[in-house]
């Protein structure tokens, strides 16, 4: 069979497994198709060069009919595509290339990351309009989509565009030692949040740009915030967090996070093959194709997730 290849940033993140599930579901539903969905990626999300090499391998493979890439280093993948000059259709998935490189791919399917960060910020701002001291939790220092979310988040809180650090704009100030880079490690994330909270008793909230502390270390997360659950309920302390993976929704239900802004990775994986087939067939395809955001607060948890 000809392959519709999905290359993700790294296998070590359950987010991408949801994409894989979507990809596999498509395979199951289309047993007779002349195409099959093939999912791959480097072992670790931080292995950017490794991802580029896999992209090359896949483009060099005779049975590759189309490829969807989730670039961990957008510029690097752009460069790779430039040199490889692929003959099969290329699209991006989950994370996009930079605007100026948009011509290198046919379309983007996935979350609007800037918007996602902005929504996280909106929830926090809404809950605590006069602001306060905050800290953002990020992932790999070089991860572009996370950096975009952080930008959206800052823009939302400050009401200005393009600030790299909040120093009181819109009432919000980032404390010393932030942002925290967790390298996608949940335990590290919670440990750092614990320290920051201890060092800044007057902290007003966290903006968590990827769900690791919640889905990777749900228990220590609960232990950390249960004691101030009432403050969260009263919007004296606000936490906006990304993703709706694993235990995150349950945590929202317990009132330990002000709002979750989730993505739809399963949908990305499930839709990607059809989009790729359209591209192969030369049909017109929208650009970008945004998969929606699932926004959950304590009150909406039971209904917020659209499969």
């Amino acid at each position: 069979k000809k392959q519709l290849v999905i290359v993700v940033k790294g296998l070590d993140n359950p987010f991408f497994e949801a994409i894989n599930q979507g990809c596999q579901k498509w395979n199951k539903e289309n047993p007779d198709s002349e195409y099959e969905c093939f999912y791959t990626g480097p072992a670790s999300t931080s292995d950017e060069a490794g991802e580029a090499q896999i992209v090359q391998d896949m483009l060099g493979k005779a049975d590759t009919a189309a490829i969807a890439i989730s670039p961990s280093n957008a510029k690097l993948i752009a460069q790779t595509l430039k040199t490889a000059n692929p003959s099969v259709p290329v699209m991006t998935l989950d994370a996009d290339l930079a605007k100026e490189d948009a011509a290198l791919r046919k379309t983007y399917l996935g979350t609007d990351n800037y918007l996602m960060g902005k929504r996280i910020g909106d929830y926090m701002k809404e809950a605590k309009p006069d602001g306060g001291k905050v800290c953002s939790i990020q992932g790999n220092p070089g991860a572009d989509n996370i950096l975009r979310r952080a930008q959206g988040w800052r823009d939302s809180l400050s009401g200005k565009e393009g600030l790299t650090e909040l120093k009181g704009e819109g009432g919000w100030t980032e404390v010393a030692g932030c942002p925290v880079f967790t390298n996608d490690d949940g335990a590290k994330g919670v440990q750092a949040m614990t320290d920051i909270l201890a060092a800044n008793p007057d902290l007003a909230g966290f903006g968590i740009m990827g769900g690791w502390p919640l889905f990777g270390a749900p228990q220590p997360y609960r232990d950390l915030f249960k004691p101030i659950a009432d403050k969260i309920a009263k919007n004296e302390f606000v936490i906006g967090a990304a993703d709706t993976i694993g235990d995150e929704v349950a945590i929202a239900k317990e009132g330990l996070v002000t709002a979750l802004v989730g993505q739809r990775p399963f949908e990305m994986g499930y839709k990607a093959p059809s989009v790729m087939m359209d591209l192969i067939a030369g049909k017109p395809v929208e650009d970008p194709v945004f998969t929606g955001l699932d926004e959950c607060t304590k009150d909406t948890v039971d209904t917020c997730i659209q499969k």
Partner: protein
Amino acid sequence: MAVTLDQTIAQKQRNWLASIVGGQTFWVLIAVILACLFLSAATDSFATAKNLYNITRNVTFVAIIALGMTLVIITGGIDLSVGSVLCLCSMVLAVVMHAGYSIEVGIAASIGTALVIGAFNGVLIAYLDFPPFVVTLGMLSIARSLAMVASNNTVVFQFGPDHDTLLALGGGAWFLGIANPVLYMIILALLTGFVLRWTRFGRYVFAIGGNEHAATLTGVPVRRIKVAVYMISALSAGVAGIVQTGWLGAVTTNIGAGMELQVIAAAVIGGANLAGGVGTALGALVGAALIEVIRNSLGLLGINAFWQGTFIGGAIVLAVLFDRIRNFRQSE
């Protein structure tokens, strides 16, 4: 001079005080204490019950594995697979419990996995003379890949009927308000210390690191001891994995990534010598504690995130500096 036999027997090159003060472990312990005193003075938030509870608990996972690693290092070996083994063992536990089995079955499966992996490493190293670095580097890759296979690479956060028992095991504080993992760490450290000092096995571990050829000639079962040592190392990673799973309440396939270097650093900072023959259980704990105190302090002091790596790296090098300066003075 008539020296009695008892006097000769009682004589040592250095008395116990001198031999403690002479060791790297001692100086690192001093460094840890000084750092704690400084932090208590410099910040309000360090010497709080809550913070101390947290840092003692955070230290445990690296420390428990460092105990096993110390045995490996004493024999002159190295085990790079511990981070991945931790991941695989956590995942086996999680998957088995998630499938509805009891916690006993889960732990047994997890420990069994650790022992099999340790035995595999050990047999290649001891019987086929593979370089430990290569075997355990291969296993680093293999074990994590198997964890992905075992879990289908998903987050597991529901542990079946014994869910709460598991969380209590890792997250509770059953005794004097000390976090459970800390208790396990202390028990394992005492056990390791005891084994190293008081058992024939411990004696053999040191002998192999001191002079493997001599140990073989005098009839020490070198190969079996080496296999045992790699099994213990994997076991310690497995135990840390189980406890950490109970603490985290979720398992992903990236846990324990890069941990091997942290663990080795802890053991070495605590005084274990990678050339073999030297190391203590206390050292493993002290080394792990130093790293954690520094990590914790960076947050409390509000150090810029970009600079944190420089501080941690600097501390690793500095930890050894004490010992070096002392040695240097002595030799010239």
